[in-house]
């Protein structure tokens, strides 16, 4: 198999369209970042919904970075990379969501603030 024709995470599609791919990614990332900073400061959005909106924008931007900068796609040459990414995302989700769930639960079982000095109070 020809080395230059194969697909690797970064430095994949060499050729005239390479710069266009990176520029597209940059423009999309700038739009998403600007929207994030706007959403964090606006009073137009229902305040409790802002955190969820920011999380969605961040996940979208990570997707843009993965596709346009790291060139992780669903192409046939990229199966191993995409599978490893899927496993990584699973572990990240378990660590973050599991920690928040368990620690939130523990906090909920603590005596009310005031009756005891607590290291963590929400």
């Amino acid at each position, binding site marked *: 198999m020809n080395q230059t024709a194969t697909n690797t*995470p970064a430095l994949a599609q060499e050729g005239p369209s390479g710069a266009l791919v990176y520029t597209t990614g940059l423009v999309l990332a700038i739009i998403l970042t600007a929207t994030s900073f706007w959403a964090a400061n606006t009073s137009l959005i229902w305040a409790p919904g802002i955190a969820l909106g920011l999380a969605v924008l961040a996940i979208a931007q990570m997707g843009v970075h993965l596709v346009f900068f790291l060139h992780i796609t669903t192409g046939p040459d990229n199966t191993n990379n995409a599978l490893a990414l899927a496993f990584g995302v699973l572990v990240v989700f378990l660590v973050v969501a599991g920690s928040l769930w368990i620690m939130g639960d523990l906090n909920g079982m603590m005596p009310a603030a005031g009756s005891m000095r607590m290291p963590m109070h*929400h």
Partner: protein
Amino acid sequence: MNIAVEIRDVAPETLSTLLPTASQAGPAPKRIVVGYGFWIFLLSDIVMFAALFAAYAVLVHATAGGPAGPQLFSQVNVAIETACLLVSSYTCGLMALAVNSRRRGAFYVAAVLTFVLGAAFLALEIREFADMIARGATPQTSAFLSAFFTLVGCHGLHVAVGLLWLVVMMAQVAVKSFQAAVVRRLLCFSLFWHALDIIWVALFTVVYLMGVRA
């Protein structure tokens, strides 16, 4: 392509010789193996950051009477840091294109731009840390600040290591030119640099943007 028609005409036992399996095709090129291995390392690094993010999210309200996020964070500073890192990720992509087409001049321009933008990011972050510590918001002040300095400092440390790596790669290109091994290392470097930008996206969202609202 009417390859399906051709396959239907051949006997089943010759089918395996017609379509070689992965093992018959021989080992993958070293470039593919190196990229895959480094990708696995980056994912393990991201899992480590996930643990730090989880610790930060659990401890974000444990300010122990000390200052909280809204009193400490400057959104303008974070916006400039984000812009520096995003554009440096872009110039790193252009550097990868220059490496692929073996253009040394374009490689040096893109590498120096990437370095300058990364160094500007790091300088802004160090200034922010120094400013916070000068105002008494040290890592010892509260669990929130311990988690903050660990999470953001760990990312900053990765950026510092990346800058050092980039200098080494520029020196290697100067001395060895675009040898196969040097090109593979440059592939790993650009993967590393793009991964750091992905972590920064999560970081500025969770720490700074959600932090100034709280």
